[in-house]
């Protein structure tokens, strides 16, 4: 897989991953959205879009265990829609030795998968029982 190419809108989001900070774009109207855009989909504003540091608190909205080999990936692995405490959904992976055990509503914590250029992909791991 090639490293994702940021654009002028998403560059701050990707740069923050160098410090292992997960940003969520938020408009001055209060709306949070992902992925980052050049406008707010709630109020239409093109100014006043800023960034919020996500807490890392998250839960599984939906997930699937991919069982077919795609170039660059080794099945089985979990692809999930992850709901952040800040309200937005992210597509991500849930990294676990038991992919079949991940279910809707499971609490997750943020982790990072380093990219060769120093950036990183936010991924998630299941919270251990004692962490919940």
């Amino acid at each position, binding site marked *: 897989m090639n490293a994702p*190419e940021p654009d002028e809108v998403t560059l701050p989001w990707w740069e923050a991953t160098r410090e292992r900070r997960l940003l969520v774009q938020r408009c001055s109207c209060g709306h949070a959205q992902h992925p980052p855009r050049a406008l707010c989909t709630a109020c239409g504003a093109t100014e006043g879009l800023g960034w919020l540091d996500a807490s890392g608190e998250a839960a599984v909205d*939906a997930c699937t265990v991919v*069982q077919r080999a795609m170039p660059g990936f080794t099945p089985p692995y979990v692809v999930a829609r992850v709901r952040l405490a800040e309200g937005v959904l992210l597509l991500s992976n849930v990294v676990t030795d038991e992919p079949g055990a991940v279910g*809707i509503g499971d609490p997750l914590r943020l982790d990072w998968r380093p990219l060769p250029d120093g950036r990183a992909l936010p991924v998630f791991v299941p919270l251990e029982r004692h962490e919940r």
Partner: protein
Amino acid sequence: MTAVAIAGAAESDLGVTGRSILGLQTQAVTRALADAGLTLADVDGVATTGVSRFSATQLAEYLGLRPSWTDSTFAGGSAFEMYVARAVQAIEAGQCSTVVVSFASNQRSARSRSLGGVVETHTPEAQFETPYGPLYPISYYAMAAQQYLHRYGGTREQLAEVAVAAREWALLNPAAYRHGAGPLSAAEVLAAPMVSTPLTSADCCLVTDGGGAIVLTSLERARDLRRPPVRVLGYGERTTNTSMTAVGDLTVTGAVEAGRDAFARAGLTPADVDVAEVYDSFTITVVLTLEALGFCGRGEALDWIAGGRIRPGGDFPLDTSGGGLSYCHPGQYGVLLLVEAVRQLRGECGERQVPGAEVALAHGTGGILSTHATVLLGVDR
């Protein structure tokens, strides 16, 4: 109701053809025109996709046409139901008189399909989704299925009924890819290789070559042509998402509004539909769409389809060609939904004919539950 009718319909060769896209397109278009009793000289409108970047332009030139109206809306499998709406409007407005809507793909012969789909590098999906390795489109439908089964307590076995029923229909359709394959059981669907949980390969549509075309013209003119006209009664569409995270609830799709608009335009209700051709890219697609279109309540579809209701002889004939699951799926299947609906209304379907069918619904779904378009068709009374 509209003043436009479908005057001709045809398939290209299907399955594994070894033919080119434009070769298959030519078959589909010329066969549909012959069916209508028209020729290329009558055609002044062309709607197609999947040919090239300039799809309608490319096909028009290849066929030797200079159309006064074209459409190459790219919306995945539902584009053809959208083309019907656009063609009706163009014919009613007088911009053109005779439209060919067509599609063809040689994806199986050309081995052009990839598990991860096609993601353009400048899109948000390339930055925020592709790095996680979702299968496209399967993993999205898989997550929709997971949410649905989790919320309503259904089972994979109940979901498999969609594939089982599709096979029963395919056994009655000599043109179906799985015509000679024998019946399929729910146990076999569950035991097929898992692709993206909870969907096995038998929950997924075929990957075949194939194509089709329909010819639209004014109802008035269609009445003088070779075949009984099939009236376009209504249409509706919704476009909802390209990303896997834009839609909050995966179990409620844009088919809700697409269907509502189509039924309102036609002055009909779901109870009026005699035969339904619903895009079955995956078993879950059908379950979500039946609920969205109002054939049954939310969360009820798995119980509703049980007991043979959607199989041959059942009281809700669904995907009577055998569908994308067992008949043909050339990547964008929507035009073949229309071809089958037309044939059912003309009473040409032999063993799989729905007796006395007067109103048919064709519903296309494109991308990852991205685009939704409904067309209601009826016999000319």
